[in-house]
């Protein structure tokens, strides 16, 4: 903005607003009375008909003054805004200007109209135009003959699927999803340990296809992933199948319409699909973690495109987040290492004991049927299996304890595929735990029909040698 007098009045108007048209004589009379008055016109520089009208069709002044309604009258004293009146309110205008009379013959009050600077889509466009220096990220120009989506592929930013091109406008819109400052560093992303600023997270969230309201979930997931206990570096680099899996709890899941029911682990829900993808894109782009480079996975897994879902909390069981110390009514993410789901069908058991035996049988084969101390597992109990536990009033703790007991491996069975001639443990070697304490995590989700549950094993390396689940509350 150009130099302005230290003491003046500033009005914002547009011809398209009937209230602005109504008060045209008021503005003219203020100028005639000798008030220092600058009028910014948002749509027609010939309106109002008077001298001192500034063309603000580009809306820079409206944006910088945070105008939401026209007319708005602002008083500037000693170079600072001291007060403003919104719409036409005769008494307020008189008080603000000190004029004896204003708008004789006009009604006492008329509400204003929406400022053009807050039209749908306009705030982020103006933010990108006038506040882009808040976004610290290198600019990459797309040539006139280049396709921006193809450019994203060519630069190596993509996980293999098309990305939403991260323009400043889209990133500004994404940043409206959080109160955090764009320059805040969320953490250092392996393997390159490059800083993930809120801006970089937002850029990758844009590319993943997130809506701005998902950003707080993405930020919480990034914080959890970068907790040393999660061991993201090792999880990225391992030859095993796993990648990060995000489970969302609390009111935020419903607020952003996440899926916790039918096809919960599959495709088709934007929040489920894009939040997990945003985290993986951040690892790829900011961290530099790419397959066949730092990511040494032998097979990978389709879930490494992004793996995120919400728990169905409409059951008698405590939610995952509650179990992990988050107050009910608050939202949180919990990150696990995870491979793809393995189905367990039991369409016959009508009592928990039978179901425990079925689930345990499948669980004992995780990693290798003769392996004890296997990877942690998340068992997603489907509604029809959940009903069997609920009808018998089994708590989650009881079901979990029963699964630990039923999955112990006989010592004599511990051969791990060794040569048949090799000595194995004695027949009386007793039993060993298939899963460590806390290594079986039950959650509830899935569609109404199907007497199935989904077993999701994680990375072989766990605890202090590898990964532990990490929970973070979702902030604004």
């Amino acid at each position, binding site marked *: 903005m150009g130099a302005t007098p230290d003491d003046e009045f500033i009005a914002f108007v547009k011809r398209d607003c009937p209230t602005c048209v109504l008060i045209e004589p008021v503005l003219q009379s203020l100028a005639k009375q000798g008030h220092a008055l600058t009028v910014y016109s948002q749509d027609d520089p010939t309106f109002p008909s008077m001298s001192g009208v500034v063309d603000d069709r580009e809306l820079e002044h409206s944006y910088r003054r945070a105008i939401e309604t026209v007319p708005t009258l602002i008083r500037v004293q000693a170079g600072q805004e001291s007060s403003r009146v919104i719409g036409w309110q005769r008494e307020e205008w008189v008080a603000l200007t000190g004029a004896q009379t204003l708008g004789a013959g006009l009604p006492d009050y008329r509400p204003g109209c929406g400022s053009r600077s807050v039209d749908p889509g306009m705030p982020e466009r103006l933010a990108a135009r006038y506040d882009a220096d808040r976004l610290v*990220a*290198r600019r990459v*120009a797309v040539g006139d003959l280049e396709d921006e989506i193809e450019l994203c592929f060519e630069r190596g930013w993509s996980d293999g699927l098309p990305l939403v091109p991260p323009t400043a406008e889209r990133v500004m819109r994404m940043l409206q999803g959080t109160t955090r400052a764009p320059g805040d560093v969320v953490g250092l992303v392996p393997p390159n340990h490059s800083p993930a600023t809120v*801006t970089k997270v937002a850029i990758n969230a844009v590319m993943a296809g997130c809506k701005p309201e998902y950003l707080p979930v993405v930020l919480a997931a990034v914080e959890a992933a970068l907790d040393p206990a999660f061991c993201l570096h090792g999880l990225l680099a391992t030859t095993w199948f796993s990648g990060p899996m995000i489970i969302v709890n609390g009111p935020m899941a419903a607020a952003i319409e996440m899926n916790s029911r039918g096809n919960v682990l599959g495709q088709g829900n934007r929040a489920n699909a894009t939040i997990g993808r945003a985290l993986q894109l951040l690892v790829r782009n900011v961290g530099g973690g790419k397959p066949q480079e730092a990511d040494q996975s032998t097979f990978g897994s389709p879930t490494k495109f992004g793996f995120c879902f919400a728990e169905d909390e409409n059951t008698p069981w405590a939610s995952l987040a509650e179990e992990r110390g988050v107050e009910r009514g608050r939202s949180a993410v919990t990150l696990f290492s995870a491979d793809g789901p393995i189905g367990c069908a039991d369409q016959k058991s009508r009592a928990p004991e039978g179901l425990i035996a079925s689930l345990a049988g499948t669980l004992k084969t995780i990693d290798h049927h003769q392996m004890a101390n296997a990877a942690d597992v998340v068992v997603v109990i489907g509604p029809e299996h959940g009903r069997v536990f609920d009808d018998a009033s089994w708590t989650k703790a009881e079901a979990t304890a029963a699964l630990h007991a039923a999955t112990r491996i006989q010592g004599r069975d511990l051969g791990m595929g060794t040569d048949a001639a090799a000595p194995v443990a004695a027949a009386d070697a007793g039993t060993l735990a298939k899963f460590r304490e806390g290594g079986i995590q039950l959650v509830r989700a899935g569609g109404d029909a199907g007497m199935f549950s989904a077993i999701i094993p994680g990375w072989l390396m766990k605890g202090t040698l590898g990964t532990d689940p990490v929970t973070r509350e979702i902030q604004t």
Partner: protein
Amino acid sequence: MTTTLLDPTGELEPVVRLPRSKPGDLGGLTLGLRDISKSRGDVFLNRLETLFASRGVTVKRYKKPTFTKPAPVSLLQQIAGEVDVVVEGLAD
């Protein structure tokens, strides 16, 4: 209007893509000679083939249909799959 994108990376690599680094020597590598179908390009490339072959380098020959158009994708894929290094005669 030119579109500008914000770099999503850790910005450890330059914006402008650098050419791949050149091999220190050609020992054990397969070299492709690509003829762009300009007049007498074959004379130049025949001589190169003789010189490379005399130094024990495995040489394969390729030719695109016309110098007026980019090479067909199938030819680019074939070259990428068969050789480690390419020499191309670009002018008359």
